[in-house]
């Protein structure tokens, strides 16, 4: 006689079997299966007695009251729309048209020299255009509310925003390595195609990486402070800049200092890149978007800058201010005009547009914890005494920016 298995009888108990009538008939003639079934039923009846804490009739209202304050403002993670159009598609136009924006910058600079006021207006417009990518990217990511890279259309928007944000240093890197516009559009196509590849959420913690990241940031910041100050000198007095540069070089090119700085940049870029990727996979909140975009920008900026410096050094070119800015200024040459949005976003854009909102957030939450930000925040409070929190936040932003936006030309 055929006996039914435990699994078949479990399905019978739950009414999930097609052989229900047949099994019922089988029970009439098989005491073994009846006993087996009775044991299963008794076990499941025991489990039925598992009590659940009672909830009042108005429990739903209570949950709603608690939930309401946590619902994100301005909607959810749906398709991102602006005036009926999809920002998710528009964001890809930013990197696609970025080379055109830079060319427009060059031709409008020439026009401004020829026709004056009207040319200056056009020059400013093209400058805003060339600088708009990271801001547009930030806006789009913020509209997503919560990044969820497990959906293809979400990935398309996120990847598009990331490329838009890093367009200035990425294009410069590709130009410096000889890939030019072919490499640029090839890279965009590859990144676009990669949105079809599925990714899974990350469960890994960033805590250890964050510690290493911050230590490397402080090392770079020490160099960057001197470096940026010296660049400011160049705008006031070029010979003074050159003198200071020569003196500073003696220090940072001494012994292991330069390799240590380069190692710090490598650590900064790699740990930052991993943390950005994990944050995206985890579905980061929009308060982290400025940090993600500015961090990514800096990562590509570091790579582009160091690559340019080492290519120049290997060719025996002096990597001074004239090398960085061009003989007639960055707008005078179609090859150096790419440096303008690259530097502006690398310095002022990061300082003013990205790190300030990040720091405001830190002041409100994680700044209360440990680590670099907490130290800087306490330092800010000490320096500014009893001034209000917002001023502290601005002050902190400068410190944080100094620590993180450093190494603007670590290899010079």
């Amino acid at each position: 006689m055929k006996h039914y298995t435990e699994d078949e009888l479990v399905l019978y108990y739950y009414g999930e079997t097609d052989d229900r009538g047949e099994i019922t008939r089988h029970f009439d003639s098989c005491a073994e299966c009846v006993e087996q079934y009775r044991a299963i039923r008794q076990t499941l009846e025991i489990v039925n007695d598992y009590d659940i804490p009672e909830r009042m009739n108005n429990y739903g209202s209570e949950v709603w009251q608690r939930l309401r304050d946590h619902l994100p403002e301005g909607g959810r993670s749906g398709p991102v729309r602006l005036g009926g159009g999809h920002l998710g598609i528009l964001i890809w136009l930013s990197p696609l048209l970025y080379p055109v924006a830079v060319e427009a910058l060059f031709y409008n600079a020439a026009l401004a020299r020829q026709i004056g006021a009207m040319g200056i207006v056009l020059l400013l417009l093209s400058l805003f255009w060339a600088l708009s990518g990271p801001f547009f990217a930030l806006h789009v990511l913020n509209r997503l509310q919560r990044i969820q890279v497990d959906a293809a259309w979400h990935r398309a928007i996120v990847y598009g925003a990331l490329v838009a944000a890093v367009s200035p240093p990425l294009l410069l890197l590709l130009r410096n390595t000889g890939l030019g516009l072919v490499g640029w559009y090839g890279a965009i196509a590859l990144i676009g195609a990669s949105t079809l590849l599925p990714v899974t959420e990350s469960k890994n913690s960033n805590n250890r990486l964050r510690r290493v990241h911050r230590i490397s940031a402080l090392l770079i910041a020490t160099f960057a402070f001197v470096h940026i100050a010296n660049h400011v000198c160049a705008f006031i007095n070029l010979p003074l800049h050159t003198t200071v540069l020569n003196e500073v070089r003696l220090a940072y090119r001494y012994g292991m200092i330069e390799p240590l700085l380069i190692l710090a940049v490598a650590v900064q870029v790699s740990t930052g890149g991993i943390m950005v990727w994990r944050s995206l996979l985890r579905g980061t909140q929009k308060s982290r978007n400025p940090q993600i975009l500015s961090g990514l920008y800096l990562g590509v900026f570091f790579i582009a800058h160091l690559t340019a410096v080492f290519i120049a050094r290997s060719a025996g070119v002096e990597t001074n201010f004239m090398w960085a800015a061009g003989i007639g200024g960055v707008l005078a040459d179609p090859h150096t005009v790419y440096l303008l949005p690259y530097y502006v976003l690398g310095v002022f854009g990061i300082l003013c547009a990205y790190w300030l909102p990040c720091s405001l957030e830190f002041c409100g939450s994680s700044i209360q914890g440990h680590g670099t930000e907490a130290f800087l925040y306490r330092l800010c409070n000490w320096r500014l005494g009893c001034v209000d929190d917002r001023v502290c936040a601005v002050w902190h932003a400068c410190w944080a920016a100094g620590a993180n936006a450093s190494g603007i030309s670590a290899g010079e």
Partner: protein
Amino acid sequence: MGGTDLEGILARVRQGNADEFRALVERHSTRVFRLAFRMTGNEQDAEDVVQESFLRAYQNIDRFEARSDFLTWLYRIVTNCALDFMRSRGTRQRLVSESEFDKMPFSASGLPDPEHLAIGSEFQRRIAFALDVLTPMERTAFILRHYEELSIQEIASALGVGNSAAKQGIFRAVHKLRVALASERVKKI
């Protein structure tokens, strides 16, 4: 709530009217709590899971497809949320240790102990322990089938696995429960 009502609410929530979400929260909170409690085994944790689940549901409401059942979709979020919650706390803290379990007055003789049988909480702890023996997948599949009365297909959909995997989860769960609650079963006869 009829299908048309639900569609209307979803449409308004998608347009950004967060207050419309209230009807869904009020309707499903108790069931969501029950599921969350059975999964986490802890009242406070269950409350946290309820809140996080509704928040995720709100954020992802655009992903809900009208042809699916809303409750099944919500259960999927709750189970994921509870599993994340348990993972984030490491191995779920057992309500009863194995040594405590062995010392419980029911086990040795197999005969009912009236004094202790009267203590409902002891009995509850034994069931909680038995459920604790299950893996998260087995526990979830079993809870959805046994308590929430979802079909195998709905469970598979909620867990994002195939029908066969959902069935196996239930089979393994029932088998483990039979072993863990054998002495209780003897007393009930």
